[in-house]
């Protein structure tokens, strides 16, 4: 038996190797205690399937999304410029990431700055692995037959029109996918986009994540599936706020697949 491996681009380059895909981990995936589990789950899947991948490791910097959305274009472009230099240096062709914000920024905004890559969200990547039969789900896992609702992330859904891939991934788990009142193009934001993750909300009657959590709970789902680190935080906080954390879990798609694969 061997252990899981997490090669870096630097290690691969030293051996004159070029992975097929760069796994862009993102800041939340690297530092957020809860979201590190998602990163680990995704890496395990990649190992298990035998995908040729590498990460940037310490060479990765924030994609710059929150700086740009908060108005600091200089800072955004400093981050983006540095990242593009590193990625172009390693001749990166394809990027997969579990963060819709990184996904959107690298896919849509890096090209204007000289970074041209094929960028996919991990939901699309997982869907492809499932479709190709590379990820074989047991179907009898802990999610079987359970009611699960999917929360659309703005930067995956409306921003990039990825609506079906995450749903296909969930359905592959042999679960009952239930939709919230506001879903797909009408999906309600978790409240964290546009750099809101990094400050307190403006004065209002309610926090956005509470509104969204109420909608999710109203479906009667036993688990809320997300595909974004910020959404994961916001929905988890929302569920806690409603004292439902014992009954309703919030998972990232990769975690659900890894669980089902027994890894």
């Amino acid at each position: 038996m061997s252990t899981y491996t997490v090669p870096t681009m630097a290690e691969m380059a030293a051996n004159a190797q070029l992975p097929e895909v760069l796994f862009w981990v993102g800041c939340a995936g690297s530092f957020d205690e809860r979201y590190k589990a998602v990163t680990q789950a995704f890496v395990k899947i990649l190992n298990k399937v035998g995908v040729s991948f590498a990460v940037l490791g310490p060479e990765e910097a924030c994609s710059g999304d929150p700086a740009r959305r908060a108005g600091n274009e200089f800072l955004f472009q400093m981050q983006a410029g540095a990242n593009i230099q590193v990625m172009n240096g390693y001749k990166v062709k394809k990027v997969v990431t579990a963060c819709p914000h990184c996904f959107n920024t690298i896919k849509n905004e890096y090209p204007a700055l000289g970074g041209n890559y094929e960028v996919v969200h991990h939901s699309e990547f997982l869907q492809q692995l499932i479709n190709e039969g590379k990820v074989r789900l047991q179907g009898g896992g802990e999610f079987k037959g359970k009611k699960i609702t999917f929360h659309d992330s703005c930067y995956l859904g409306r921003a990039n029109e990825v609506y079906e891939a995450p749903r296909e991934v969930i359905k592959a788990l042999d679960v009952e996918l239930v939709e919230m009142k506001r879903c797909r193009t009408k999906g309600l934001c978790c409240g964290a986009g546009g750099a809101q993750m990094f400050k307190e909300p403006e004065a209002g009657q309610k926090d956005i994540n509470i509104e969204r959590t109420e909608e999710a709970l109203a479906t009667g789902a036993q688990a809320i599936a997300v595909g974004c680190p910020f959404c994961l935080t916001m929905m988890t906080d929302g569920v806690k706020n409603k004292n439902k954390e014992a009954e309703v879990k919030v998972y990232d798609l990769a975690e659900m697949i890894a669980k089902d694969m027994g890894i």
Partner: protein
Amino acid sequence: MSILPQLAFVLILGVAGFFLSKRIQFLRRNILLGKAETRNDQPKNRWKAMLLIALGQQKMFKRLVPAFLHLLIYVGFLVINLEVLEFVLDGILGTHRLFAPFLGGVYTVAINVFEFLAVAVLVSCVAFLVRRNVMRVERFTKLELKGWPAMDANVILVIEIILMFAILTMNATDQILASRGDTRYLALDPLFFSSFFQPLFEGFSRGALVAIERFTWWFHIVGILVFSVYVTYSKHLHIFLAFPNTWYSNLKPKGEMENMPVVTNEVNIMLGIPIESPSNAPVEIGRFGAKDINDLNWINVLNAYSCTECGRCTSECPANLTGKKLSPRKIMMDVRDRAEEVGKSIDVGGLGLADGKSLLGDYITKEEINACTSCNACVEACPINIDPLSIILQMRRYVAMEESGTPAQWNAMFQNMETSFSPWKFSPSDRFNWADQVKEEEMK
């Protein structure tokens, strides 16, 4: 027959045309207060967007009830305008029902269709008045609609109702006169809807009927001319501007923020990356981001003039839904109001843009723009592809880069990113620590 009515008609037509062209020039100039922006790529997709979304009302149908009522008014507007062509020619030539002899039986069918649409428009307008004033649908009762905007909406609906009544009354009296053998009036096959109005006028003398018929004819056509000028002062401009507005839609992925090449040049110099072609560098570096309407691009301002204040954006805005001050509709109304203010000031030789006021500050507050989650719900919801988010983000750029006025927590996030390349304060050398555990784990 006296030529006086013809002269009067041509005169009225000329006056309306004069005012209308003045207003169009005013609006055009105001829209072009915005910065230059070229958006002519993908003409096929632009025509498609215009045909589907403006002409085809595609996005209206996300909400079925208002979409259906709106469709009736919209089709009524398009089709009844065919009859206006006859009105205008009759007015100039001094004829009556000019097209009838040429079209024969088809003419009666056409008039019946117009009458059906007139009734449909009438019913829809009443339904819309009820939605606004009796049912008080939430998006029509928001703060930014208080006063003139709410009044404007009601005025338009009432004018439309009166115009439709005029056309039905005209047809009713016209046909009574024809049935009494008056040779100047043409007996048509039965007109279904206006025949219900006939009993109201049966007992009237010939003189009274002629007076009513003429009055309603003049009222209808002059009403339409007045309405066309009124529209230019009103939120109702969408009936024309929805078309160019959808043609100039943002066809890029909604999540993409526009690049700032000025910043790219400076950053490249700082990072020691050679600047590819100096010719790309803009001649003068203007303001970073947007403080006033002239910092926005002209499509942003066109968006504002195209907005009919339906509030679908605001009703789907997560910030607004949870009680924050931000309302995407208000952002659009503010841009328009500021453009109007500047335009009027310029026209009277005033200070225009230099009046000491600005869009951000005097119309829109930081509290509003800071509340945006950039979720694109407003952009998605707009039936004619207006983009309030573009304006909000340009103003955030101004606040961050010209004023350093972003909220303290965002400044802290900036600082973290500058020093440790992450929005959180973690050491960059710890970035890869997440892998330590998994690298030790046996692969199952």
